[in-house]
């Protein structure tokens, strides 16, 4: 069969992405229709930059979600004769497979397009989750540090600065080495790091429903049960049902990324808390006799959400870049993983003759981070407008 022209390639890719287009159109139609009722999210649709950024991010999110329908081939299977095939090459013997490699083949004869799509899933599975855990840790430690100040603040700030004084790459090399995986270090760190979110949610609910013991017990009980279940699976890989699990490799990467991110979040939260705690409504709550945790979590935190949401978007982007850095140094997740950092690194070797295996994930990574940055910009503009 003849190789496809660029126009045909684009048309076929667009066709493969059909579920993504449908979901995007639906999201936009619904959001714009009801944007007045949707708070900050709705306001996003008043800003062009924000809408573009949101569009790009949602595009990748839907690609990741519908990856199974979008891919043309298995992201790991190798087809004889397709090594470094140029985009649009036809399979030698398609049988029941999709007859073309839309964006060509990589140096191991795997489909670049399918790997890019599965790579989106890989990246979007780790980055937002890691950013979220970093945020919970940063908030849980940053709020009391800023609110109580004193020795606690000095100690925590020192620790945060200690981690921040480490060059990130050195930390990665020390923490993501195979020798470390065999020691209890990543497990212990994960044990501590994953405990914080559970603690955070428990305290959050406890502070809120302190006066309604029945409700509190129910909510806290549910959180603790689900938390313990997830905790068992993620930290000890001992989830009886098998829903929560993380390979030691992935856990190691995850812990390292969270460890690097959390101190920065801590510093931001601490700074904002220092600022907000002098406001009148905090003083009012104090005179009302509210407990310190209630004030922190239900008075200060909601008022700090603007800058935090913005930073959250940026941090997902930064985490994506960090994961790529890990892949670049061969420290990443599993070696055949289609995540973009590893594929860029693998494709780099033959870059000067076969640019497509490296360019496709490189442009994907760029566009996702760009989208997150634009989204953050849009959110910042709109939240400042309040």
């Amino acid at each position: 069969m003849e190789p496809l022209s660029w126009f045909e390639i684009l048309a076929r890719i667009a066709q493969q992405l059909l579920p993504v287009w449908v979901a995007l159109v639906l999201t936009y139609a619904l959001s714009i229709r009801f944007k007045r009722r949707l708070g900050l999210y709705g306001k996003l649709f008043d800003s062009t930059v924000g809408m573009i950024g949101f569009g790009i991010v949602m595009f990748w999110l839907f690609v990741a979600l519908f990856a199974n329908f979008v891919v043309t081939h298995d992201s790991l299977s190798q087809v004889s004769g397709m090594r470094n095939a140029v985009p649009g090459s036809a399979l030698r013997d398609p049988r029941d497979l999709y007859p073309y490699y839309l964006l060509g083949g990589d140096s191991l004869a795997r489909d670049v397009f399918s790997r890019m799509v599965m790579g989106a899933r890989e990246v979007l599975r780790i980055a937002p989750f890691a950013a979220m855990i970093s945020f919970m840790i940063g908030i849980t430690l940053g709020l009391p540090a800023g609110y109580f100040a004193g020795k606690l603040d000095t100690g925590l700030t020192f620790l945060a600065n200690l981690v921040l004084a480490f060059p990130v790459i050195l930390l990665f090399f020390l923490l993501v080495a195979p020798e470390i995986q065999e020691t209890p270090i990543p497990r212990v760190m994960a044990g501590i790091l994953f405990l914080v979110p559970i603690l955070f949610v428990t305290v959050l609910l406890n502070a809120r429903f302190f006066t309604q013991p029945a409700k509190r017990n129910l909510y806290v009980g549910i959180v603790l049960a689900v938390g313990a279940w997830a905790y068992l699976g993620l930290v000890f890989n001992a989830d009886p049902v098998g829903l929560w699990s993380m390979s030691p490799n992935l856990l190691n990467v995850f812990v390292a990324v969270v460890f690097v991110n959390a101190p920065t979040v801590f510093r931001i939260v601490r700074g904002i808390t220092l600022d907000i705690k002098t406001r009148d409504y905090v003083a009012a709550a104090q005179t009302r006799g509210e407990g310190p945790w209630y004030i922190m979590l239900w008075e200060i935190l909601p008022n700090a959400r603007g800058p935090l949401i913005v930073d959250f978007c940026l941090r997902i982007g930064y985490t994506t870049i960090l994961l790529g850095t890990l892949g670049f140094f061969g420290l990443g997740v599993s070696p055949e993983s289609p995540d973009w950092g590893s594929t860029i690194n693998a494709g780099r070797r033959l870059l000067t003759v076969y640019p497509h295996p490296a360019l496709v994930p490189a442009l994907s990574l760029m566009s996702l981070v760009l989208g997150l940055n634009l989204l953050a910009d849009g959110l910042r503009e709109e939240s400042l407008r309040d």
Partner: protein
Amino acid sequence: MLLFLFRRIGLMLVTALCLTFIVFALTNMPAKLETLAKTQAGSRMTDAEVDRWLERNGYASPMLVRYGEWLGVLPGWVRTDDGGTVTGRCVALRDTPEAAGERCGILQGDWGFSTRFRAGVAEVLSARLGATGLLMMWVLIVMVPMALIVGILAGMREGSRTDRALSTVAIASTATPEYVSGVLLIALLASSTVGLSPLLVSWGWIDGPVLFQGNARSALEDITLSNFTLPVLTIALYGMGYVARITRASMTEVMTQQYIRTARLKGVSFGKIVVKHALRNALIAPFTVIMLQIPWLLNGVVISEVLFSYPGFGWTLYEAAVNNDIELLLASSVVAVVVVLVTQLISDVGYVYLNPRIRIS
């Protein structure tokens, strides 16, 4: 002021001590030591041979003791073999058998021995830091003016078309990490088969096969436009966007200030307002950010130096980490901590200097 400096330096020392201890602990785990032994004395050694090697080279004593030796608070290890030859940490470092039993750690100015490069750590690091110094100098020379110009132009008239265009450029540059931009730049400018170079060759515009070199090793001897452009650009591009955005934010804020409005109402020309009134105040924030950016650029330095095989500090850090070169890694982390904390200090002091409203208490 003096007290402030003292306190900061004290904090710096404590931080460095903690950090080196962490690095020491992580690099001295049994599995890591085994790796070291195998890279030093033969990759296919048996376990018994590994133990013997560790014993003979002073790695068998407890970790805390060896950390003390490295610091110089404990005397270095000494070993006398059957033939009566004395070996030991200080014997090797000072090259005389009399040194056995002395202390020889960083407190005495002995930075130790690099197992990867087979040379003194101080010697290796000073040469590599020099190379990185040159790289950083060029990065800053390229990055800072570019970032400031982009930021000021964008921030002068908020919301204008220039602003939108330049802001997008700035965002795109922060969204392109070094390992992506480096790869793109090599494909575009330094390949004789794809990108611009074949075109330029066919037009007869360049003599060599490529426009720029995709490898900066030769820059060690002689820095040229051809071998240094790509590594410098790779680092500068990523850092540029961030500084530009801070400058823009700072500039837009200044431009809404009362005294600028007053000046405009007085009929001072727009160009004059920007240069005479807005700039100094708008540059305070970028200055602190640029200072804080320097340690952050270290990441980029490692990636770029490895990508272009330019043996500077980042490349050394990478090699030391990959080969578990303990003493070199420790010295590198000391350097990194000092860089981070010194730039923080400069940024604080500079902030005060530039902004007369703030005084350090």
